[in-house]
């Protein structure tokens, strides 16, 4: 599965178009990480736990999008966009969407 945020793949022709596919996850952090984050809010610096958490969640959302594209019979997802929003305190939604296509 080719995933790209370009509108077309150089040197390849799009033969079929399936429309929008998407994937999302809502993840909350656990209390231990929250405590560390509270400390970091005093000292400043990177919140490594959060970086990892969001990275994992983004991967999961991408996997879900790829799954959806596969079930449609696509072999590529183009023009992929990521979006993050914090839904409530301590939870974030990661959302990925793109266009499922078949390329030669």
């Amino acid at each position: 599965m080719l995933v790209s945020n370009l509108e077309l793949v150089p040197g390849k022709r799009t033969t079929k178009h399936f429309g929008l596919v998407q994937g999302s996850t809502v993840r909350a952090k656990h209390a231990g990480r929250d405590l560390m984050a509270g400390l970091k809010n005093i000292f400043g610096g990177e919140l490594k736990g959060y970086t990892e958490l969001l990275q994992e969640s983004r991967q999961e959302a991408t996997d879900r999008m790829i799954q959806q594209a596969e079930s449609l019979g696509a072999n590529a997802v183009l023009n992929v966009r990521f979006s993050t929003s914090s839904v409530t305190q301590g939870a974030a939604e990661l959302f990925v969407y793109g266009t499922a296509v078949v390329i030669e």
Partner: protein
Amino acid sequence: MAAFSDLFIFIILLGLGYGFGQWAERRHYRSIHTREKELAGILVFAERLPPPDPKFKHSSLVGGSVVISIDYFKRFVSLLRSFIGGRVSSYESLLDRARREALLRMKADAQAKGFQNIFNVKFETASISKGKGKQIGSIEVYVYGTALGPGN
């Protein structure tokens, strides 16, 4: 007496924030500068469409992200700043550091995958500690783009 101990804690937190915050920021900028030099060979473009080039055979989505937090001292300074208005330089440097760090991580990702050019780069910034009132102080920056090249 209670008011006095509150003030005491506040001053201690302010001092810790200032000391560690400044130290961490200087260290981070030093690391950013050295890595920016190391990764200068990876080219990043915001163009939507790459130029037609036969060597762009493979592509891969690459990205880098970072969650970074402001320190207690800077948050206090920005609170003071909000009375007068104007540039909040303490937050400016926070965002600058986060964007450059995320960009470097994306470049490192592309390098690890054997690519030299990244196209259609998008920046995504989110405040992840919303709803915590005065606690807002950490932001996430995610940078992504499509790496093109012969690949490995």
